């Protein structure tokens, strides 16, 4: 069976499905669905690369959607924007092919309106058919060489910046009064749309440029084919004389030099007199207005047509064919090189492998995946007086051990509260997922991170419990905690230094498959009920500047710390898990980290999406 491959249509479908998932508020439904796909289809296949995993996931989602087009809760339905895109692209190709061909013929028709009074001017023919094409090819080659040599960024000559510029300018042109009439939600939606375009550019680079490039080359091929066909038809079916003329007093010798230089690509096989006119033919085909054409020899007048046809073939048609084939190769290469590591991909991956059968109500720690012996990051040096850093975490093995060796019976007390327990089908599934959680499946790894905690909540929260949650729940190993909110500039400087140190140490000392260069993350704890103001968004943008482009920034949100919730959590904890060794230290923390309100989550999601950072992730500390 032919192995499925990523295509542009599939990528569009994939992005579409991811965006549809973002609109589903039922996290448990998504987790269940994705874990099922992982257990039933991905694990047996033994595939581990994100690209392969996501392709299987996509195929499965599409298959389910086609089989049950109106399944409740499945918003994907059987609509495929990818198919639509590919169909449109196919149609565009045909349209551009026809249009190019017709344009070529039209240009020639205008040129070949021959009355017999005067020969057709070859230089004029080349000027209108070849010169613009050569200019375009030279400009493209110039951009290509500039980007290859690092002189200019490759993305500069793709349509994205232009498109972005046009949209932004259009928005700016909206008067202040018009903007007043638009609600903030709509303004955010516009900004979010711009951000999606921007994010797409960052994630997929030139991927969506190549189809346009290919279409343009198809137009060029058809255009040149049209010219060639018209010229040959003219030669075959009409008696047409070709000559040359110029107001400048150019000598025939000079013209011969130019012509022979143009004919370099083919003169080794078709020499002067055959592939291009020789010096005598050039002299004999010169049009001098005052002398008329009667003295010109027929042989000289027809000697130009092979040159004209070959010029079109070698300078018009062949470069277009080469560019068309290069476009195809580049597209293929771009598709293969996609890493699928941006925000929504990582969320999907985590959903697949971290299904938590017992919905968390802030009362119980999640099942901990057994954590391999971590090769801890070396100690990062810092000077206390200059730094807002609060803590280094060097040993978390105690916590890991406590969770790793948790007996299955530890969770039995909570199962009564599990709504999924009521369904036997889901119970079976739960068993399967429990076994899955016995190890950390590839390609998920526990990544070391620097946690940024606002000073307002630093004292009140249980740091150890937070770290434990981040590790067992989200697979982020908090190695450093930085208190932020006092002086953003200093804090950013500090994060930059620490991050650079960590990354450099990792690069030199660790195995490539360990915590590599781009594996460090930054977790930014935030209270979800505090609306994200521009200051917060600017801080995140500045944070991105001091980190690498693909370093994951996780905005970890927690709900409102309410006394009543604390009491509630405490009661439930006492009823359900009074024997838990960690109870005394945990109940305060679980009440501090509360679930995030749906409305707050949506507000953060909308605001953060305006940043257009594909590696900026939102997580709920407690689900």
């Amino acid at each position, binding site marked *: 069976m032919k192995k499925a491959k990523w295509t542009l249509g599939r990528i569009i479908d994939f992005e579409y499905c991811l965006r549809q998932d973002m609109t589903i508020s039922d996290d448990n439904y998504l987790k269940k669905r994705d874990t099922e796909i992982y257990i039933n289809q991905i694990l047996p296949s033994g595939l581990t690369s994100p690209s392969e995993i996501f392709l299987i996931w996509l195929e499965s989602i599409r298959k389910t959607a086609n089989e049950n087009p109106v399944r409740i809760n499945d918003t994907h339905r059987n609509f495929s924007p990818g198919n639509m895109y590919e169909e449109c692209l196919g149609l565009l190709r045909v349209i551009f092919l026809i249009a190019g061909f017709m344009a070529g013929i039209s240009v020639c028709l205008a040129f070949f309106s021959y009355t017999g009074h005067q020969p057709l001017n070859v230089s004029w023919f080349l000027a209108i058919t070849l010169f613009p094409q050569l200019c375009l090819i030279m400009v493209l080659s110039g951009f290509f060489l500039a980007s290859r040599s690092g002189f200019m960024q490759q993305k500069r000559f793709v349509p994205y910046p232009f498109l972005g510029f046009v949209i932004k300018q259009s928005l700016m042109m909206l008067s202040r009064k018009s903007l*007043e009439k638009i609600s903030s939600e709509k303004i955010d939606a516009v900004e979010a749309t711009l951000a999606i375009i921007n994010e797409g550019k960052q994630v997929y680079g030139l991927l969506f440029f190549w189809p346009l490039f290919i279409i343009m080359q198809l137009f060029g091929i058809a255009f040149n084919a049209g010219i060639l066909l018209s010229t040959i038809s003219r030669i075959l079916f009409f008696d047409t004389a070709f000559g040359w003329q110029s107001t400048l007093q150019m000598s025939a010798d000079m013209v011969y030099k130019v012509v022979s230089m143009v004919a370099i690509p083919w003169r080794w096989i078709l020499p002067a007199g055959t592939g291009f006119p020789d010096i005598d033919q050039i002299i004999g085909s010169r049009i001098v207005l005052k002398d008329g054409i009667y003295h010109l020899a027929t042989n000289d007048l027809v000697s130009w047509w092979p040159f004209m046809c070959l010029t079109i073939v070698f300078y018009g048609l062949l470069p277009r064919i080469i560019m068309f084939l290069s476009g195809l190769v580049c597209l293929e290469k771009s598709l293969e090189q996609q890493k699928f590591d941006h925000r929504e991909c990582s969320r999907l991956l985590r959903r697949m492998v971290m299904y938590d059968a017992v919905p968390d109500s802030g009362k119980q720690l999640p099942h901990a995946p057994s954590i391999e012996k971590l090769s801890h990051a070396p100690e990062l040096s810092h000077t206390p007086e200059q730094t807002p850093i609060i803590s280094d975490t060097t040993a978390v093995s105690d916590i890991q051990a406590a969770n790793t060796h948790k007996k299955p019976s530890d969770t039995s007390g909570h199962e009564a509260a599990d709504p999924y327990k009521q369904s036997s089908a889901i119970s079976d599934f739960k068993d399967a997922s429990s076994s899955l959680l016995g190890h950390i499946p590839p390609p998920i790894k526990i990544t070391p991170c620097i946690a940024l905690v606002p000073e307002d909540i630093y004292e009140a929260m249980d740091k150890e419990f937070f770290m434990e949650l981040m590790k067992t729940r989200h697979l982020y190993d908090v190695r450093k905690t930085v208190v932020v909110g006092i002086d*953003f500039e200093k804090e950013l400087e500090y994060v930059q230094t620490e991050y650079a140190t960590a990354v450099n140490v990792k690069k030199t000392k660790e195995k490539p498959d360990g915590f590599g260069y781009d594996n460090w993350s930054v977790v930014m704890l935030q209270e979800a009920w505090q609306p994200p103001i521009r*200051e917060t968004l600017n801080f995140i943008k500045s944070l991105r500047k001091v980190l690498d482009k693909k370093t994951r920034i996780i905005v970890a949100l927690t709900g409102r710390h309410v006394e009543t919730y604390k009491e509630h959590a405490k009661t439930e904890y006492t009823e359900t898990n009074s024997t838990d060794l960690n109870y005394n230290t945990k109940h305060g923390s679980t009440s501090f980290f509360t679930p995030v309100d749906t409305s707050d989550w949506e507000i953060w999601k909308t605001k953060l999406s305006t940043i257009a950072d594909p590696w900026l992730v939102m997580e709920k500390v407690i689900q």
Partner: protein
Amino acid sequence: MDKHVIMEKIPEFAIIGHPNEGKSSVVSTLAEDDTVKISPMPGETVVCQILPVLIDGQEIIRFTDTPGFQNPRETLAWMKNYSGPDELLLKTFIDTHCNNPDFKDECELLTPVARGAGIIFVVDGSRPVRQTDRIEMEILRMTGRPRMSIVNCKGNEPVHLNQWQNEFRKHFNSIRQFNAHKATWSERIDLLESLKGVDQDWQPAIAMVIEKFKEDWKHRNRLAAAMTTEMLEHILTFTMTENIGESETFNDAKIRLQKQFIKKIEAMERLTHEKIRKLFKHNIFDCTLPSNSLLHEDLFSEKTWQFLGLSPGEVAIAAGMVGGATGVVIDVIAAGITFGVFSAIGGILGAGSALLSGRRIADITFKGVKLGKDQVKMGPVCNLQLMYILLDRMMIFHGSIINWAHSRREIDESVADDITANLKKGFSSGWNDKTKKVCSRFFQSVCTKSRFKYKKQQIREEMEQVLFSVLEKQV
């Protein structure tokens, strides 16, 4: 001090705070303007919106809704580094940052303060104080403008009230708790009273504003009473005449006319409610009436007649008052020589008649009268109970509307229940005898053809006065 001098400079207050704290709600309630955009999405307000309060076409106070702080840390840092004259701090800040998109909101919200507005700092008391709030308070302190703080509880309970109060004491001249979604008229007046204490210079002007507010409120209630009286007159004397169709029997024509008649009466009531709604500056109130409100019931529905109006016994007594009143007129005509005999007889007859029909008050019937061969006439419905029901429904409507803060955009059943519970006390069955007597006299004067027009006018005025007193008590 001359009123004109006081009002020359109109007091302006800028409502300032962190995004999504309910600033627009506070402004909407204070300025009685329900067209202010309110959204759960932070950042709905992007430019300042000035809401003048007009009384008799004259602007007496101005509230300015502002965007929330977006960049407080950098704003404060700039202000701390500023070394020019204090009075130019805000102007310089705005001039320096007006073209910087990062400070767009700060420039916008500080503009009214720079032109001399007082500050009302709004916070949500159901959330804890954070460093950003302290920074914002410090910015406001540095402006040097008179300022008060309002704890507007968006959640149900001001859990962190103490914490907020402790912080406020360091930065503000006055602190007040104010729930923008539940605030009544008297709470608004209390808030304005507090504003007097913010700056001594503003005391006379704000005192004047409060006085004007109170006068305006009385004026509105007086108008509402007049509108209600007029409505009662129209409804109780309303008649309709229709032709009987060729292929129609008298009974069919009667039923058709009855339906039209009821519709007309209900339309008259609705029209009056609409006028009162506009009087109290509510544009969107109607769609958010409590779901359990009896106003959702039709005027002639069984439920309306079961719960509103007077009990059969009370109707009998009220009717007795009508009868007695008739007797009084005869006594007056007989120059008192009857020693009140006619009054007593009239009272007994009236009460007896009402008691006999009292049990049937719920199923009011409309008797069509045949006029000539091909016409049928309906009305007037001179039913005492109908008048009391109309009055009760008006009381419910009035009570709801004056207790409905202008910032409320959607129904909150708990608030609705509060309103309904309060309204129960004000229904006509609880009115004193004096009030009921005036009502009964008014009923009689409307339903009987009296030659004494001056007397009718006098009774009408008495009725308006009584209704005004009742409406005033609803606050």
